[in-house]
């Protein structure tokens, strides 16, 4: 589904990603872990198309197409979804209207008819239950005045409505209390199926107790230095990132 080949990216002349290689297949859940500053969020941003980053080398293929060649909206319409680490507050823009516009843009891209109001509301109601998000939240402006937990739940709610092929959750667990964490994880697990894939970008192992990854990758200094299964996450949790650092120094 996603093939990242030797991806290098920089921001303001500073190289952050120094050659990432990663392959993700439909039905898989991958966790990308790493210390602060290792490039985790940069990777998520570059995949979503944030234009403050310059890609200097490498390629990314998404469902057989050149991802880096696409605008952010085209990536979304092709089925990529980024759950933001810091969801943006947009006063005055109604959550529901925005989401309806997004759903219909994606449907249009797929050659489907626009969804009518009744069907859309039914869809919204159904997905609201999934992330236990309140109706009143959706009648407000997008993320405007939402608590940290509400914003994160709203991201997962949007993901549930848009049904992406590949979802990247950028530090979705940060700032969540244990109940919110459980709700978010439950949402992600319910949406998992054989046709979609999930990338969980996280600093801590905590979320991975709830969403069991098929693969765990450790990102360090702009490169994936170690890959394994869920046991790797536990090992990291136990030994800390210093262990990778030492390991890295030994091998390099």
């Amino acid at each position, binding site marked *: 589904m996603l093939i990242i080949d030797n991806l290098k990216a920089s921001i303001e002349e500073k190289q952050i990603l120094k050659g990432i290689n990663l392959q993700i297949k439909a039905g898989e859940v991958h966790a990308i872990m790493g210390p602060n500053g290792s490039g985790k969020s940069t990777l998520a941003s570059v995949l*979503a*198309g*944030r*234009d403050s980053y310059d890609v200097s080398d490498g390629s990314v293929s998404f469902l057989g197409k050149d991802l880096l060649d696409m*605008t*952010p*909206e085209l*990536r*979304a*319409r092709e089925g990529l*979804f*980024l759950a*933001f680490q810091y*969801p*943006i507050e*947009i*006063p*005055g*823009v109604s959550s529901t209207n*925005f*989401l309806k*516009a*997004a*759903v219909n*843009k*994606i449907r249009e*891209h797929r050659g489907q008819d626009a969804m009518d109001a009744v069907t859309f509301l039914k869809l919204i109601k159904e997905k609201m239950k999934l992330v236990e998000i309140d109706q009143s939240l959706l009648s407000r*402006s997008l993320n405007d005045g939402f608590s940290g937990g509400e914003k994160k739940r709203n991201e997962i709610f*949007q993901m549930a409505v*848009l049904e992406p092929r590949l979802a990247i959750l950028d530090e979705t667990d940060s700032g969540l209390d244990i109940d919110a964490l459980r709700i978010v994880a439950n949402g992600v697990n319910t949406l998992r199926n054989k046709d979609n894939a999930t990338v969980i970008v996280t600093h801590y192992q905590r979320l991975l107790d709830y969403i069991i990854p098929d693969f765990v990758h450790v990102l360090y200094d702009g490169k994936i230095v170690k890959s394994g299964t869920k046991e790797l996450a536990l090992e990291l949790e136990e030994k800390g990132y210093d262990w990778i650092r030492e390991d890295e120094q030994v091998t390099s």
Partner: protein
Amino acid sequence: MSITERELRDYFTGRFESFNQGLNGNQSLEIKELRQKAIGAFAKQGFPLTKNEEYKYTPLTKALLKSLKLDAPVNSETIPTCKQHLIPELEGHMLVYLNGKLAYRSEDLPEGLEIEQLDRLDQTQISELKNHLATLSNYQSDAFAALNTAFFQSGSLIKIAANITIDKPIIIYHFSDGQSGTIYTQTRHLIMVGKNSRATLVEVNKNLNPEHQTFYNVASEVFLEEDTQLHYYKTQTECSGSIIVDNTNINQKDRSHLYCTTVTTSGTIIRNNLNVTINGEYCESYINGLYLVNGKDHIDNHTTVDHRIANSYSNELYKGIIDDAATGVFNGKIFVQPDAQKTNAFQSNKNLLLSDKASMNTKPQLEIWADDVKCSHGATTGQIDGEQVFYLRSRGLDEQQAKGLLLYAFATELLDRISLPVLKDYLKESISDRLYSCES
């Protein structure tokens, strides 16, 4: 060929004598004297040049000198179909002015609402108005107010009796329809809301023939007696080719509530002077403005809120979106006089610039002479937030749609405060197409 300020000034002062003589039979002594005083004030001030602090960022006089052709027929008349230019479905008591002349007025006014033509009042009526007419006008300090006071030839006296609610809005249309040369118009209104009464007033300014320049100099005085409530809307939405100066002076007495909103979306140069004097306790004033300008249009809102008495509240919000090579100016003065203790006064001006050539000059001016007050002001000028655009795009919206959504949200914060649903929807619709098609 353009003329000089002196020539233009002389043109008006030179015309005054014969004008005032010509009206002799039709006007009271009071009015005659008033006009005399006003032309004196005008002759002394002259048209404001940009070295005048109040007109520093608005080259109004320059625009007038460039566009006014003094030998052109002054008021060329056509019989256009005004009807198609009315705001659809907006029902109310209508006054339609075409090139400064009353073209239509609603009959059957409800009890308690009196509308007269200000230029046709008899001696008795004028005598009754002597405590009101031109008492709020800033003609001593503003040349355009002076010019209007000296030359006004049309306008309305709108009088609302005490203890009454006028359900339907009173709607004044100012249509210009120049067929050749530049037309100029001096219209004046006197609006009096009696004790414990409520009303809604809408003023709509449109240039029906944008290829021809028009200079519209309008002045209004509004008196709000005790316990009144006035919703006052001004729209300048189809004013391409117009040079408009609007001097509106409002006086509020105890416990009166004012909700004033000005919406501008086009105009060669528009200058709105909105001066609110709070002459009572427990008054509330909500003063809002929205301006969306593009091309080379120029919009200037000068507002004054003068708190003279204690315990009142004013809240002012002006928002602007400036595109292309357009210019916005905002000047907001708040005075809190020594007796106006416990005043709450807030002011905010927020602007979005959509192009490198767009400019905005904003100047809040607070003068506070009382010590127990709450006042705040803020002004921001920036661009569309790139993070917000990216967030919306990352969900599938294209760039233009994302920006349109953000601009529309920015603008509708103000329109949502309009309590007249038909007008609100009309304005929302008229800005929506434009904001969703902004290029930058």
